[in-house]
């Protein structure tokens, strides 16, 4: 039971972690809490469905296409929305509200296009992989492998490549990075692309894990993702990864019956927030965030 929950937690946690990095890098560089991120994920999930469901294209190429489409959406919105707002020197509040408006538009557009009925990918719901005492469905098995691959690639990208390091430098101190010769405008474009790619893959994985999904499902994912971002320290990419995995495992383990009888599974998102609140009391800057002297 315990190891089964840990495995489930790894599945949920790695999806949250991937999405949390996508939110966190954008926040770090643009000071923008992207409230539309859950709907970016729903867009990715439904784009993959469009190719996998009706057209019957295998899931892996469908996911790759969905990631590219989500990245295109993400970077396209930078040109039509975020760039004019930056030119106007819009602050935190404007950006947050604009992203709320965008979330509404995106979600309703998806509902308009796909309708509210639940969708499902072409995976075998009865196939089960057994590893010792742990049983994973095919969807969970695929997700855990894909998520591990994404997380390792992402980690290598952020730590080893010039672009990844530049992104982190920019998130850390934008003025300093600009003085050091970083082409800020270009890195912002790449950041939106990366954020969109991550939204696409995280959306498909989240949809796989919960087997059926509809255009509204992005929003329900958003709150644990925000919790992971804040827990890790807003703007810290590694923090977001750690926060996501930690929250995923904690959410699943909280339902363990040997742990004070276990929490009712419907309250898993609440567990994420109680944990976050407790962590913020102790470390207001988040796990890996740096305390800032204001």
């Amino acid at each position: 039971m315990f190891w089964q929950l840990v495995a489930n937690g790894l599945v949920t946690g790695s999806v949250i972690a991937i999405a949390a990095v996508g939110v966190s890098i954008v926040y770090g560089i643009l000071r923008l809490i992207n409230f539309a991120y859950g709907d970016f994920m729903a867009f990715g999930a439904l784009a993959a469905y469009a190719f996998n469901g009706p057209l019957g294209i295998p899931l892996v190429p469908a996911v790759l296409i969905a990631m590219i489409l989500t990245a295109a959406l993400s970077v396209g919105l930078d040109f039509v929305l975020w760039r004019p707002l930056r030119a106007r020197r819009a602050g935190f509040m404007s950006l947050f509200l604009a992203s709320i408006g965008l979330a509404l538009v995106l979600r309703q557009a998806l509902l308009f296009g796909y309708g509210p009925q639940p969708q499902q990918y072409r995976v075998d719901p009865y196939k089960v992989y057994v590893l010792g005492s742990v049983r994973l469905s095919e969807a969970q098995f695929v997700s855990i492998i894909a998520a591990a691959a994404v997380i390792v690639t992402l980690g290598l990208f952020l730590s080893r490549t010039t672009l990844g390091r530049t992104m982190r430098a920019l998130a850390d101190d934008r003025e300093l990075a600009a003085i050091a010769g970083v082409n800020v405008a270009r890195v912002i474009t790449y950041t939106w692309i990366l954020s969109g790619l991550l939204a696409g893959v995280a959306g498909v994985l989240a949809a796989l894990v919960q087997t059926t999904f509809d255009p509204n499902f992005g929003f329900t994912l958003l709150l644990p993702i925000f919790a992971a971002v804040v827990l890790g320290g807003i703007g810290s990419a590694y923090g977001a990864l750690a926060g996501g995995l930690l929250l995923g495992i904690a959410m699943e383990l909280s339902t363990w019956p040997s742990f004070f009888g276990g929490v009712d599974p419907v309250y898993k998102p609440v567990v994420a927030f109680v944990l976050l609140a407790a962590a913020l009391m102790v470390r207001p800057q988040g796990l890996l965030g740096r305390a800032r002297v204001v």
Partner: protein
Amino acid sequence: MSVFTSGGFWAFVGVVAGIYTILALGIQLQFGFTGLLNFGQVAFMAIGAYTMAILVVKEGWSMWLAAPLGVAAATAASLLLGLSSLRLRADYFAIVTIAFSEIVRYVATNENALTGGSQGTIALGEVGKAAQYNDQWERFQARVQGWLHVSSSDVAMLVIVWSVAVVLLALVWLAVRTPWGRVLRAIREDEDAAASLGKNVFAYKLQVLALGSAFGGIAGLFYAWQFSFFSPADFQPLLTFFAWMIVILGGLGRVWSVPVGSLVFGFLFAGTRFLDFAPLSYLDSAERAYLRLIVIGLVIIGLVLLRPQGILGRREEMVLE
């Protein structure tokens, strides 16, 4: 198009705009005057409405006692939230408030024994019996209707809601002109400067959070009475965003901009319901509902981009940053 000419429909739009005015006034006080980011306003609405309904149905209380207790419960919840998280940075606090409102909705959806669960207030009482919490309210509304000599109970409701809204608006209008109100503006402009003058910034913020949440609770009561049934699905975060949109539409940092914003929003929201000429008439009602929300989302984005001070806002007072 006959609906447009019927008085009952416009009375309904007016009632909803009045409820939104009360809800959004809380946000105006918190954000427009103090700079607090409360994105969980709908939670206080839910707490007010549920507390009233539960006390009336389950405990058999008089509605006139249960209603103030609903407002008190909303205020108490905001104090708990504020004491634990008001010291966080503004952006963290914003996320915590959204989370809080979602937690309230989760609890309302899943604690069937307390709230009737996802079925809503109809399941508050015994199994197989539709629970009612607003008998007393309807009698009161009928009496007001008699006093006013109007034919429709909607008009009576309109008068009641807007009387309360105007009283609250006047109270806030007076309050922000006192020294207390000036401290709020000082906190909005520069928290550290206010603190350095010896003002207890935390205490002021807590008071404003509590007051705005009480308004949320009152809005929740009227919502419950107007629709005589509600369920957790009525308290989606979307409602909080509507209230924010009203505040920004009307103009930040001004009191009387709130009713203007909510009337404009009310007509926009209700009016678009009847856009049924071609080509829109080819869409079914669900699709038109999606389109309406797309329009509202675009209006939010457009306002942020083009008129950050709102319709009545003064640039020198406050611009959305």
